[in-house]
């Protein structure tokens, strides 16, 4: 097929300019206007002083100096990184066996299981977080269940309003994100590779460690990225189940555009978060290359 197509003028060359323009217009408008231009505005605003007007006054790096010299911002940024890192680790480690089962053992049940693990992905994030609030509350599900079964006699305050509650809730909310990329990576490993490993005398564990795991690393890294990015900027979960000790960087950004009303400073914080994400993406890219990505 492809050889015939190559000897003839390619149909692609015949695309009319009007058709091309019409087809590129909606996507072009949205991507350049809503994504690039909007992000450009954030970058611009980050270098402006706050005078209460929309785009601020005069060019300045003062916002970034405040971020760099304020211990609060370092603490909150570090806490966000630790929480997002733990959530990423927890979701990826717990999702891997599920993806492995789906790829190698599920058989006829595969489609049903894939459907079941992706379904929560499409339900309300707010409701998934809210569910944990009623689970962890002082007079909530967990405390009342423990008292009912006689495990302890007094409700404990130890669940709600802790960073641990934020980690558990986020790990649950973003769990479905991690399975699919790992599953896709595992599913595309040629079965001949596994047969070759076992024919050459590798025990199942060795063949997992030396063949399956390295070959699935691109999926693992992709999964880590899609969990890490939304969690590092989350502000809803800390507000719902985290309490004051789990303020995250997203909370600070949100308050700059709300109560604190310092948009340029909020923009500067956002730029810092995007830089951190950029670093994480670059590290993931580097790791991907080191592990010998097949893509």
């Amino acid at each position, binding site marked *: 097929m492809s050889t015939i197509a190559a000897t003839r003028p390619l149909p692609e060359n015949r695309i009319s300019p009007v058709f*091309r323009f019409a087809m590129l217009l909606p996507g072009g408008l949205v991507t350049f206007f809503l994504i690039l231009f909007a992000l450009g505005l954030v970058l611009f605003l980050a270098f402006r002083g706050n005078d209460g007007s929309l785009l601020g006054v005069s060019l300045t790096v003062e916002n970034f100096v405040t971020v760099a010299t304020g211990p609060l911002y370092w603490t909150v940024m570090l806490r966000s990184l630790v929480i997002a890192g733990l959530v990423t680790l927890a979701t990826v480690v717990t999702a891997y066996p599920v993806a492995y089962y789906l790829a190698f053992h599920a058989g006829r049940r595969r489609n049903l299981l894939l459907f079941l693990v992706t379904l929560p992905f499409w339900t309300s994030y*707010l409701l998934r977080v809210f569910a944990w609030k009623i689970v962890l*509350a002082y007079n909530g599900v967990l405390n009342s269940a423990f008292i009912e079964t006689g495990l302890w006699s007094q409700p404990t305050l130890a669940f709600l309003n802790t960073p641990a509650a934020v980690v558990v809730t986020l790990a649950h909310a973003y769990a479905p994100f991690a399975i699919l990329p790992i599953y896709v990576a595992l599913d595309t490993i040629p079965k001949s590779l596994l047969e070759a490993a076992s024919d050459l005398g590798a025990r199942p564990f060795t063949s997992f460690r030396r063949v399956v795991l390295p070959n699935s690393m691109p999926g693992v890294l992709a999964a880590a990225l899609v969990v890490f*990015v939304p969690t590092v900027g989350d502000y809803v979960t800390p507000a719902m189940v985290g309490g004051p000790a789990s303020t995250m960087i997203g909370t600070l950004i949100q308050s700059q555009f709300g109560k604190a009303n310092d948009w340029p400073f909020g923009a500067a914080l956002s730029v810092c978060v995007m830089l951190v994400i950029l670093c994480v993406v670059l590290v993931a890219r580097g790791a991907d290359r080191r592990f010998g990505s097949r893509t």
Partner: protein
Amino acid sequence: MSARADINAGGRWLGLYVLGYLVFLYLPVLLIPLFSFNNSIQAAFPLQGFTLEWYRTLYGNPALSGALANSLVIGVIAAFGATLCGITVSYMDLYGRSPVAATISAIARLPILIPGVIAGISLLILVNLIGLGPSRVSIVLGHILVALPTTVVVMRSRFVAIPKTIREAALDLGASDWTTFRRVMLPLSLPAVLSAFMLSFLISFDEFIVVFFLAGTEPTLPLYIWSQLRFPRSLPTVMALGTVILTVSFIIAGTAEILRHRGLGAARRNPA
């Protein structure tokens, strides 16, 4: 032989693990419907008794029905916009053979790497700059942005599954680009179009993080829920509402997934 037995035993243990994982995934969410029927203001064991009282409070609540109407209108318009963008972006990415189309497609998937709070504030600055301000139109723009990566991925995987020869045959037989797109490629990918539409509707319907910044005086359903969470007395009502939303979400998402897979299967079975 023994290696084979090992693998099967391993598979059984893994199967149990997957079962436990699914329980962890669904149990907290299923508590919402459970307590929505519980005759108590608190979500705690033991269950007090069965009641439909909380569902009754959903009726005749103008703030709630207003938020629902907003969510439906915004969801449909945003889903239409996101699906249109998803179709055109992925089609041109695959067949446009231009760096511009490839760039647009790459940027369209970029929002995956932008935390919701930053997408929200960047759009807030934008809509204030162009004079829209926080409003329903702004929310539609925000939700097109949030749903765009999903529609692009769904449509792209569908277009990839259609054998190249079909489009080439249409063009060789003299169909114009537009005719080929509208009469050949679009009908062949109809299940994916419907799936992309439903999924982007759901994304908009459930979205909270971005809409929080873009809503004016007319809240959507998630914002209404958020405003009610402050009052402990309204928790049972929130749970009844949550149960309705979860049920609708499961039905729409289920239908969308079935459509997507059925469409792909059909394309593989009869490639011509």
